[in-house]
């Protein structure tokens, strides 16, 4: 019929375009050594997903690039930035990475979730770019690719500190409520290992889907197991009702309810329910963090949680410093210098801000950039060590600060 013939012609034309183009594709030589050109930083972070947890990271990248360019940029040129929305599913993320690759990114900051980083790491590194994430903490990404770095510590270390704290408070049994996603599952595995090592018996483990209408089933199952302590491995935006139920209804207190780094955040539940709840948070000490958060709020006033904003900021800064040390914008060259500029070289002088380190590099001295968190050093498997953890606790007005 007519319709089919018309359909045949339009799609054959488009199909023909594809075949013709692939036929005349010129053989691509290795990406030419882009020495002089400006450092192109791409960022693939979630703008519309994960209940807003990624929005602070987007602002952190903006702040970092602004500071770098204000201090003279990299290798004599301003750093160019392109932010794309990864959302929370892969086909948009893959498309977003394509746009960064075609734009010619040398460094790609992201992705937010560990699962997504696993999906796009080959696409980024294949194009010769360096991938640095400020928020992937899943231990399954350790050593996945020589061009993949991360400035956030894996949860395993935090799990060990939490287990230590639980024993310090005198508990011998514990229960875990974990988010059923890449981050939550990896953290849960490390938490069980750390508890077992510390002799604490794990009496209940419950996972919840972030899209469930309510989490009462998980809370009830955990409470029924009568644990001496409970650990919440969930984002702040999903934990409000659980804390309300555990503290308000089932009588748990700040002596036996422990929070993960991502559970520390702003809540709209009754602040008195939060009083005294504790959790570890890697990253800068409070004064530095507070001042940094003010810069982020200037960018995006309705930010709710700031977890991993500091480490994402460090990811941009340390990449820029490595580009200066490598005197090139090429991904592989920059990657080679990442360990060196983060304290890998003998006799390097510590420096805190980008301007300070850039001047030292210009003067030819080796630098050890310690980032906002005051401890940043890439190990041989590109995971970060020397991470400083602070124990935070909530006051009775719903905000949290370093516990005395």
């Amino acid at each position: 019929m007519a319709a089919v013939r018309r359909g045949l012609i339009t799609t054959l034309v488009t199909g023909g375009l594809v075949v013709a183009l692939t036929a005349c594709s010129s053989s691509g030589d290795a990406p030419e050594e882009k020495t002089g050109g400006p450092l192109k930083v791409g960022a693939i972070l979630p703008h519309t997903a994960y209940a807003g947890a990624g929005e602070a990271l987007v602002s952190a990248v903006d702040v970092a690039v602004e500071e770098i360019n204000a201090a003279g940029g990299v290798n004599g040129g301003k750093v160019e930035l392109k932010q794309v929305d990864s959302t929370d599913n892969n086909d948009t993320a893959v498309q977003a990475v394509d746009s960064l690759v075609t734009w010619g990114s040398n460094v790609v900051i992201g992705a937010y979730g560990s699962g997504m980083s696993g999906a796009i790491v080959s696409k980024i590194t294949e194009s010769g770019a360096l991938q640095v994430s400020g928020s992937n903490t899943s231990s399954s990404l350790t050593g996945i690719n020589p061009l993949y770095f991360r400035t956030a510590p894996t949860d395993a270390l935090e799990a060990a500190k939490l287990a230590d704290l639980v024993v310090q408070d005198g508990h011998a049994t514990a229960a875990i409520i974990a988010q059923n996603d890449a981050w939550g599952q990896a953290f849960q595995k490390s938490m069980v290992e750390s508890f077992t090592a510390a002799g604490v018996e794990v009496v209940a483990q419950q996972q919840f889907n972030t899209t469930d209408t309510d989490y009462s089933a998980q809370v009830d199952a955990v409470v029924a197991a009568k644990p001496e302590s409970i650990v919440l491995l969930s984002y702040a935006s999903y934990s409000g009702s659980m804390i309300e139920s555990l503290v308000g209804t089932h009588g748990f207190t700040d002596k036996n309810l422990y929070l993960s780094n991502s559970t520390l955040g702003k809540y709209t539940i009754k602040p008195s329910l939060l009083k005294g709840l504790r959790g570890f948070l890697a990253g800068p000490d409070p004064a530095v963090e507070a001042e940094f958060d003010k810069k982020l709020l200037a960018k995006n006033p309705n930010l709710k949680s700031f977890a991993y904003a500091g480490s994402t900021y460090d990811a941009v800064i340390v990449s820029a410093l490595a580009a200066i040390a490598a005197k090139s914008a090429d991904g592989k060259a920059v990657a080679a210098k990442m360990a060196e500029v983060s304290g890998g070289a003998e006799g390097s002088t510590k420096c805190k801000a980008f301007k300070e380190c850039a001047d030292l590099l210009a003067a030819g001295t080796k630098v050890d950039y310690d980032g906002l968190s005051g401890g940043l050093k890439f190990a041989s498997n590109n995971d970060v060590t020397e991470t400083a953890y602070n124990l935070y606790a909530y006051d009775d007005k719903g905000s949290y600060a370093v516990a005395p």
Partner: protein
Amino acid sequence: MDIIWNSLRELITPTTAAYALAAIGLNVHFGFTGLLNFGQAGFVAIGAYGFAISVMTFGFSTPLAIAVTLVLAAGYALLLGVPTLRLRADYLAIVTIAAAEIIRFALNSSAFAKWTGGANGLYNEYSGWLKGSNPYPSGVVTVGPWTFGSNDLWIATVDWLVVLLTAGAIYLLVRSPWGRVLKGIREDEHAMLSLGKNVNLYKLQALVIGGVIGAAAGILYVQPTSVQPFDFATRMTFNMYTMLILGGAATVFGPILGSMIFWVVMRFTDELVNLGVDGGLFDNVTQGSQLRFVLVGVALVLLVVFRPQGILGNRTELSFDAK
């Protein structure tokens, strides 16, 4: 304006091809037979997980893994089809969407994490056969105005080959008497019964064919990236309906054109949002990209009400908007 070229690049990316193939499968259901299958994402999920688990857990060779996956999808189609094909359209829609969600929750659950990787999904250790057989020079390959990773380009080429072959097969099927019976069933089952056509058998055959094509799309969909359970949510099926109706349901090339246009528009609006942010229209990228999805929803409504036959279809042949 490189914004135009960047958007047009979506015409040939692997994601567009995989969605086109899945939409062709859906077209056999919805377009040609009138089956309101709201669970096509379930078939795509079976394709993706079936293939990945066969290769990674059981170590099957690629052809065997593909065969096992397609048989699995056919089995799921039979399991779903036999009891439900006599139900009315909206009941069938709800059963298929519920079945697809049951699959997604099971794949996402930590209970089967040993095989499915749970919420982590499965990292890509199953597309060796593609990387191995890649004739393109390694590194970055420039195709006209666009640059592709060499593996990406090879995956896209394989995808589009499969899409065109499938479209050709469907073209022949639909023009045959078998296709004519399907169109008859789509319009009036009782008339077909009175002429001795085993209506339920034809509907079951259509469900199996569409489902198997959907599973094949699942296999191709995960080659460039990794398998993530969250990708197979209802959003995937609803996007496919938008593409199908945009391109032209009940036409052979409608799904392909629909998928191409859908992803080009999505990319174009993404680039627009970035320009919008630079131009100060939105104070941050977050606000801009949320409006994009409003656009998709409104487009679907306008299309299905004012242009149900889409671009390639013609109104007189379309059945689903019969009064």
